[in-house]
């Protein structure tokens, strides 16, 4: 299952197999280089670890429960656990990373923060830690996403952040990321860029994965308590950039008994021309500072993706996931808008949990996975669905 010769951890030069690196303009070099030289050292400092774990516990509410979903298990005739990242403060896993990165920003001597956001979850999580630490916060968000995730825009504003609409390109996550990078180029000295996923130039993918790895660290002891073994047969997660998946996979990357399952947003279908399923449609390319799989034209222009879920509406994936996909270590499923909506409704009705649209893509995999009755699956329930209510109302015809 796992070729012993393959490493799934980042190399000295910032690569996962053929993917990764730091393809950044010289304007960003001093900041990225400073981070590269120090991130491991800063993260390992006892004072950093102490503050990080204190905030995860008392501010975020960790550990998040590992909940046995009995009715979903019965429905699919297998053993399903939900890792409840939706219960994190701010409603998604994104805050694990922003807590880590705000502490990093402090150690780097930066006092202003810029970030991009798609669904608004990362924007809210960033605005939250900025309020907590008293730092200035600017969030770039695609103009289309500002419309479809209005509650999160209001939350960011209430937390004191400035929300700037990205008007270029497809006006979604890719364009918000471009604008955030441009902002950083224009403010290199006082500002730290808190990237929201395992994307961007090295060392961002590795740093974000390490902050999110708390998810699988907890799954290990929680499963041990509940099942008497610390590994599941399957771990499932949705992949936009791939941060919740990276966190859920992290401590199982080298565990041959655990199959890693990733759900990508197929939009209206992989061949419909309206999709965001990068591992199905992408080729190796460079975007936002790293080499990875990328949806692009023959001429190397980035294709504007489509998904009903703003957090998965991105034409690339993190370099770790490109490596997991091409090496065969993880299996990727393409999940359409409709399949995700159906899975969201099912989880709500069977378990009393309204998941985020992103997360619903991972839940939809159960219809295709073929897990056996005694096999154990853990789904990373990356976020809650409050932010998606407007979409659910419209698509599931919930209006009076």
């Amino acid at each position, binding site marked *: 299952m796992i070729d012993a010769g393959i490493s799934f951890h980042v190399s000295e*030069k910032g690569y996962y197999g053929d993917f990764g*690196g*730091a*393809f*950044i*303009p*010289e*304007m960003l*070099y*001093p900041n990225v280089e400073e981070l590269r030289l120090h991130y491991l050292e800063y993260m390992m400092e006892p004072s950093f670890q102490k503050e990080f774990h204190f905030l995860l516990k008392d501010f975020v509410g960790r550990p998040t429960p590992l909940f046995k979903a009995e009715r979903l298990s019965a429905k699919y005739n297998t053993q399903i656990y939900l890792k409840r990242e939706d219960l994190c403060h701010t409603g998604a896993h994104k805050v694990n990373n922003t807590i880590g990165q705000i502490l990093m920003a402090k150690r780097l001597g930066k006092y202003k923060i810029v970030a991009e956001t798609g669904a608004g979850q990362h924007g809210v999580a960033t605005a939250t830690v900025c309020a907590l630490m008293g730092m200035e916060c600017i969030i770039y968000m695609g103009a289309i996403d500002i419309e479809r995730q209005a509650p999160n825009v209001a939350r960011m504003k209430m937390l004191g952040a400035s929300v700037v609409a990205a008007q*270029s*390109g497809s006006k979604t996550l*890719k364009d918000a990321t*471009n604008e955030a*990078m*441009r902002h950083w*180029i*224009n*403010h*290199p*000295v006082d500002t730290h860029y808190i990237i929201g996923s395992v994307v961007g130039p090295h060392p961002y993918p590795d740093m974000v994965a390490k902050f999110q790895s708390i998810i699988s660290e907890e799954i290990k002891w929680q499963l041990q308590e509940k099942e008497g073994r610390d590994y599941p047969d399957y771990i499932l997660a949705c992949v936009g950039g791939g941060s919740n998946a990276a966190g859920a996979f992290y401590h199982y990357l080298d565990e041959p008994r655990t199959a890693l399952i990733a759900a990508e947003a197929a939009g209206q279908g992989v061949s419909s021309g309206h999709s965001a399923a990068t591992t199905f449609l992408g*080729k*190796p*390319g*460079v*975007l*936002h*500072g790293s080499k990875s799989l*990328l949806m*692009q034209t*023959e*001429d*190397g*222009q*980035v294709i504007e993706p489509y998904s009903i879920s703003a957090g998965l509406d991105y034409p690339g994936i993190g370099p770790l996931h490109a490596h997991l996909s091409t090496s065969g270590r993880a299996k990727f499923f393409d999940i359409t808008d409709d399949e995700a909506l159906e899975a969201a409704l099912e989880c709500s009705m069977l378990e009393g949990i309204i998941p985020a649209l992103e997360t619903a893509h991972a839940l939809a995999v159960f219809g295709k996975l073929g897990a056996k009755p005694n096999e154990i699956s853990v789904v990373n329930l990356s976020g809650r669905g409050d932010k998606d209510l407007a979409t659910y109302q419209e698509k599931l015809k919930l209006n009076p």
Partner: protein
Amino acid sequence: MNRISTLFKSTQEPILNVYATAGYPNFGDTMLVLNALQEGGVDIIEIGMPYSDPIADGETIQQSNQVSLDQGMSVTHLFDQLKNMRQSISVPVLLMGYVNPVLQFGVERFCQKCQEVGVDGLILPDLPLAEYQQSYQTIFEQYGLLNIFLITPQTSDERIKQIDSISEGFIYMVSSASTTGAKTGISSDQEAYFKRIDGMKLKNPRLVGFGISDRESFLKASNGASGAIIGSAFVKLLGNAKNLREEIVEFVKSIKGLK
């Protein structure tokens, strides 16, 4: 010797490098723009290969890139338009763009095409030094292409020396921490920065880019360097021009102080 190196060796006057987005304002305008730039007296031409996600560029150049792409421009079309370039263009020509379209075209095939049509060098802002040395340098050199590196006010002296040691032609000195077109004019702080770099006695000459828009800023920048690069201000002119050729010739003459 490469046309760029020859130019810097033979000229005492401030050198003017002008950036123009390929296939802009209209798909078929590329050669017309090049010829008019040369007629006006430009010293180097930098042709922008349009890209969907140009993160180092501000609004003006972004927008010109998008218009050009919407009109169907691609790397393949560009080489086609430049096929007979050297029949009329004698000044050095650089291609500026982002690394992904080059990767998709195929790095070696791209370099081969550059050599065929008479391109002298490349500016790929998202291709950093380490990646260049590891995977690109040998191929670029094989086809006689100079790779032009950027330095900024935040670049350390140590890194500047490193960039100088592997550079040939010139070094692109970004005038301030910004994307293109973000600021105009040259401040006294910036002049001090140009002088500081001048004092490092590098082996390569420098051209100043970002924020240069008229004769005044061109001369100020040239004071601490061998010349300067104009991008956004010229792209704006292209976007608004009624009489493209004449306005380009006029613009270049006014910057160079020619009658």
